[in-house]
């Protein structure tokens, strides 16, 4: 490390923390070259060209869904949207490593995981349209309510995993969080619990370099994966824009979990190509040069290059996948019209699982209040609530 690797405040610079280096596991280079890796290759031996094409299809579709949702926000149909663009390989590679009975505890940006788990478009969008606090039943999709409180879900995944192990199941839990979350107490406490109880959990950190405007160098003086050692678990630093490397690393971690050997921390080094959310302006804190540098490490382009080098008709593949992606985007847009504004009195629903005298009285009083109005309607009178929830959205 040279003095120039540190900025004026002594923090490691972005360049130092994101530079590909010896400990970064990379199976496919940005230009599509396949590097042999004796440890990781056996875990993806089943990924033939067809399977690789399907991983590409997943990534292309979620990229298209993400772009469509961003457009829907710009058009006022959604209050807010946190784009995943750039993180397709990290999310698809890990998501496709999971078994159906593994449980996902994610943050708010894991739309590709929702895609992998078959979440319906209307279920995906309702939260961001402001009509519901969550879109899907976690038990139908094996995926918890997405978490806004940074890092809180790492503990939930750990507890779930402890319970699964106590029941004698070999199912695992996986927690998705970002580089910013690694500074939260909850994440560090989750590491302690998971290590002490050998919990079958995978901690999947998408280091996308930025926590809104704060660079990863503010969260950590060293590579995040290295923290694992201090907690007594393996830490793996993998190219998060390399879908094969991510798939292999996640399979290795899941296997370890199922064997009762405990947790693993995976640091998937990737990049958030878009804003933190549609309410964010990344031009205030990062350069075009940096963006351009990461654009050259695009997770989709390198798979296409590898497929092409392997003799696949990528023009045909791209055409087919584009048609699928357009169809998914159209379904997403169409779903907006199926999301009804909630009835006014549903504001009181599900606060408690059991009857609650206090809330029943408040509900009764508010019902009487609403009944004073001309039509006695309990409909939501604000109409399209979506745009009104936009300001000060999720962080």
């Amino acid at each position: 490390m040279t003095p120039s690797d540190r900025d004026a405040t002594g923090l490691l610079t972005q360049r130092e923390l994101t530079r590909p280096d010896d400990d970064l596991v990379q199976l496919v280079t940005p230009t599509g070259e396949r590097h042999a890796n004796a440890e990781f290759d056996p875990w993806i031996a089943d990924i033939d060209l067809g399977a690789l094409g399907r991983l590409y299809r997943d990534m292309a579709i979620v990229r298209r869904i993400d772009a469509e949702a961003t457009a829907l926000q710009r058009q006022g149909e959604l209050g807010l949207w946190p784009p995943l663009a750039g993180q397709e390989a990290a999310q698809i590679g890990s998501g496709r490593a999971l078994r159906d009975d593994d449980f996902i505890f994610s943050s708010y940006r894991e739309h590709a995981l929702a895609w992998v788990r078959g979440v319906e478009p209307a279920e995906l969008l309702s939260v961001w349209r402001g009509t519901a606090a969550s879109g899907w039943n976690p038990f139908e999709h094996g995926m918890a309510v997405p978490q806004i409180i940074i890092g809180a879900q790492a503990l939930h995944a750990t507890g779930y995993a402890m319970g699964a192990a106590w029941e004698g199941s070999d199912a695992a839990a996986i927690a998705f969080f970002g580089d910013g979350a690694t500074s939260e107490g909850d994440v560090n406490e989750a590491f302690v619990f998971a290590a002490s109880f050998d919990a079958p959990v995978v901690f999947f950190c998408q280091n996308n370099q930025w926590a809104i405007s704060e660079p990863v160098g503010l969260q950590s003086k060293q590579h995040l994966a290295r923290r694992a050692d201090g907690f007594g678990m393996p830490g793996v630093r993998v190219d998060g824009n390399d879908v094969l490397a991510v798939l292999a690393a996640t399979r290795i971690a899941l296997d370890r979990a199922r064997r009762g050997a405990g947790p693993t921390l995976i640091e998937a080094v990737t990049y958030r190509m878009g804003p933190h959310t549609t309410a964010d302006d990344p031009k205030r804190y990062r350069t075009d040069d940096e963006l351009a540098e990461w654009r050259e490490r695009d997770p989709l382009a390198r798979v296409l290059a590898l497929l092409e080098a392997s003799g696949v008709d990528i023009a045909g593949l791209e055409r087919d996948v584009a048609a699928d992606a357009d169809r998914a985007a159209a379904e997403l847009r169409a779903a907006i019209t199926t999301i009804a504004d909630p009835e006014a009195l549903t504001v009181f629903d599900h606060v408690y699982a059991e009857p609650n005298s206090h809330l029943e009285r408040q509900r009764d009083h508010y019902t009487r209040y609403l009944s004073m109005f001309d039509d006695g309607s309990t409909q939501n009178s604000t109409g399209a609530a979506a745009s009104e929830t936009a300001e000060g959205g999720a962080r």
Partner: protein
Amino acid sequence: MTTLTLAKALNAGLRRALADDDKVVLMGEDIGTLGGVFRVTDGLKAEFGAKRVVDTPLSEAGIVGTAVGLAYRGFRPVIEIQFDGFIYPGFDQIVAQVAKLHYRSRGNVRMPITIRVPFGGGIGAAEHHSESPEAYFAHTAGLRVVACSDPADAYMMVRQAIASDDPVLFFEPKRRYHVKGEVDETASLADARPMGVATTVTTGTDVTLVTYGALVQTARDVATAAAEDGVSVEVIDLRSIAPVDYATIEASVRRTGRLVITHEAGQQGGVGAELAASITERCFEFLEAAPVRVTGHDIPYPPAKLERHHLPDLDRILDGIDRVLGRPNSLSGVEA
């Protein structure tokens, strides 16, 4: 009937809950091998094993957060927070996760988590060991907040809290842990007084005195002392702090016309404030005087040698009763 201390009654209730439902797990610091710093979980690890009675790392957020994950998996976690003042590192997980997940998941995810908290002062403890944080949780939608005051209630209410599909903050009056009482260990949950219903401890006609936790015994003593002075005090043990059983308090206040509330917690934004406002709204025409609150001061919990100047005691509560009756009292002639 068995004669048990309050701590032993809790132990018996927890044992019964562990035996009745194999999804019940106890988690906390020092609760296993040691049996808890107050011995409330004494012997339970030996009886049910280390996967049912779990000694955890020293991490309140970790305990509560992993309990959330266990609840996702179908467990009924029962957490011990070692002391009231240690709950704050877990506050975020309680308020942002435990309290809200049923609502956020539109009823799909239940959080049947019981959070046991020894609370209150009067034991000459070091700082952070004598607090009364119940109002924070009563203010939080999605939580139920209860406090037991005697062994019989302790035994049954802890079982009810564990059986509840809602998360319950279960406050235990630590200075009454060693008080003995009769406990019916054969009683069934179905026949028990619901957790949300208040108890009229002594009947009276002049003043309604509402409290919970350790001060219920003090309030009994107040009623006895007041009776010698010709004042008839009706003592109500709130039991449930959220939601409050207003029907019981309203019925009493309509008869007595006077309300005194006492708790160890500070006054500002407290349980007494909510009770006074709500009863004033509901029973204004029946009140002969403004409700009176006798509470801890709005100060950090003081050093042990000063706690008798902080905690409401028999004389301070009697002074409050004099005030609500318009008799000479410490604030006579002072604008309230």
